[in-house]
């Protein structure tokens, strides 16, 4: 996802010279071609993220389209008040880009993890949240964010495998149906979409034909689709690389719990209100330690489906 962002920001800057790439002292090597070709669109404002977001708001209110890019916790939680006031309250056209979201920096510990960023960003009026699931979707998200006028948060992990399905056009707020199903649905975001596809494959053996939904936009969320699924399905499981508090699961839950025609039992999977204390270069091993894998997901769906 990181490489895809680097390529995408190059492409959107080539299309629109108002695009700026602002970083908090990261990415100099990866962005070397960008820096060479767009020296006047690139700003490294140092390890001072709070100010960087405020400056980006000033630039955006002056007609620029700044993408502010650094490691997720530092561009979300650290400068949350700047995002709330300078960006969202002013409704400034700033694109917040967090890289290495969730537990992507698997050996770095909780300082570099972000398992609460969706929760805090969701609470801000005017904010759009996009959480792409694979490299192609990162590019689609960056182009969509450039064209959309308003505060936008793009949540990236690091490496992720390309997903292969008939995806159609990307539209902010419109979920993608990765796999059609009946009676059961897994709704996922980010890299968990890949895990959801694997789990749905496993569930076939148990005669469960499961929808797999890619909720690449968490705000505004695709309410119509979630309502439809909740009418059609007996069981819905959500899975995310985020705390179970305030993220995708909460967003889906708040829709179906208030929807009178909801028929579905519902389970939220994610990090269960804990700091991640595992270290590994292999993210899947960390996921597994916290009960997040295709197998666990399939088991949870089976339990819920057969209740």
């Amino acid at each position, binding site marked *: 996802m990181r490489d895809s962002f680097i390529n995408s920001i190059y492409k959107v800057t080539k299309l629109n010279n108002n695009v700026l790439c602002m970083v908090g002292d990261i990415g100099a090597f990866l962005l070397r071609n960008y820096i060479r070709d767009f020296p*006047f669109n690139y700003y490294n404002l140092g390890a*001072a993220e709070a100010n*960087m977001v*405020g*400056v980006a708001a*000033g630039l955006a209110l*002056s007609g*620029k389209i700044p993408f502010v890019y650094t490691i997720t916790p530092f561009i979300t939680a650290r400068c949350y008040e700047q995002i709330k*006031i300078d960006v969202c*309250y002013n409704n400034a056209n700033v694109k917040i880009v967090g890289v290495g979201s969730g537990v992507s920096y698997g050996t770095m510990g909780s300082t570099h993890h972000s398992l609460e960023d969706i929760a805090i960003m969701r609470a801000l009026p005017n904010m759009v949240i996009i959480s792409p699931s694979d490299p192609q979707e990162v590019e689609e998200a960056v182009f969509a964010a450039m064209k959309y006028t308003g505060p936008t948060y793009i949540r990236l992990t690091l490496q992720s495998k390309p997903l292969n399905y008939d995806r159609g056009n990307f539209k902010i707020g419109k979920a993608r149906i990765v796999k059609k199903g009946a009676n059961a649905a897994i709704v996922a975001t980010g890299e968990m979409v890949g895990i959801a596809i694997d789990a749905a494959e496993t569930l076939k053996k148990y005669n469960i034909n499961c929808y797999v939904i890619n909720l690449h936009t968490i705000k505004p969320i695709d309410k119509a689709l979630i309502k439809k699924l909740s009418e059609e399905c007996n069981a819905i499981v959500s899975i995310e690389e985020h705390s179970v508090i305030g993220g995708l699961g909460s967003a889906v839950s708040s829709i179906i719990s208030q929807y009178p025609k909801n028929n579905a039992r519902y389970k939220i999977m994610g990090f269960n209100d804990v700091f991640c204390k595992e270290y590994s270069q292999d993210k899947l091993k960390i996921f597994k330690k916290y009960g997040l894998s295709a197998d666990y997901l399939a088991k949870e769906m089976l339990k819920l489906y057969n209740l």
Partner: protein
Amino acid sequence: MKKVKNEVLKLELKATEMRKEILEMIVSAKGTHIASAFSIVDILVYLYDKVLNINPKDPTTTKRDKFVLSKGHGCAALYVVLADYGFFPRRVLKSYCSEGSILGGHPDSSRVPGIEASTGSLGHGFSVAVGFALANKINKSSSRVYCLIGDGECNEGAVWEAAMVAAHHKLDNLVLIIDDNKLMISGFAKDILDPLSFSKKFHAFGWNTIEIDGHNFNTLANAFNKLPIKNNRPTVIIADTIKGKGVTYMENKKEWYSMLPNGEQMETALKELNGKIKFLKKHLQK
């Protein structure tokens, strides 16, 4: 000489009339921050009267200078100034801090013409102003950006992040004004987090520095007339001010950060302000 003196008297008269208007507006709304507003009135009057290249009839034109009130709690003064210069009708001031009004206790850029950035939480407006100045540089615009912050506000770390970035990017189109009234909510700044020397600090951060009396229109004129002092550097004007300036019993008293005068105190305040207005008018006629 007489012309210059008359010009200063006119500005003093305007600032005094505005203090009266601010006081009546805040008291009528049972609002707050009278003393903070009084400390910046003269600076605002000078900026809007003599410095800023702005057009109230076209407040969002791209070629304008921009002013950011980073210490948003002083906005009662800015509202009165904006109304006086025609950004919105004077009658709007009567709705200050009441239901349906666009004028709240801290300024909202999405609702108030002439407000460039919503502020209120300290240490934000300065960064946004740096963004405005950087955009002007990118666009090769000659417009300037002015930002007013409080001395207590300089406790905030983001202020120093912004100061570094402004100097590093050679934003000589940016002018920061510190309302150095030396009082915070709970007491004197020197007893809470001593700022020591703003001048030395900003100089060390790569800024031009000017120290002036923030209530004296001659020194304000001298400071703003020689900008930028040195190209390639942002400039900070450290304005020595008095919190509560203009109503003697409020001056330099921390209590007046949030207090409202009672009937008798209001009478005393109005008597002092009316007295000064009468005095200035008399001298202006000569």
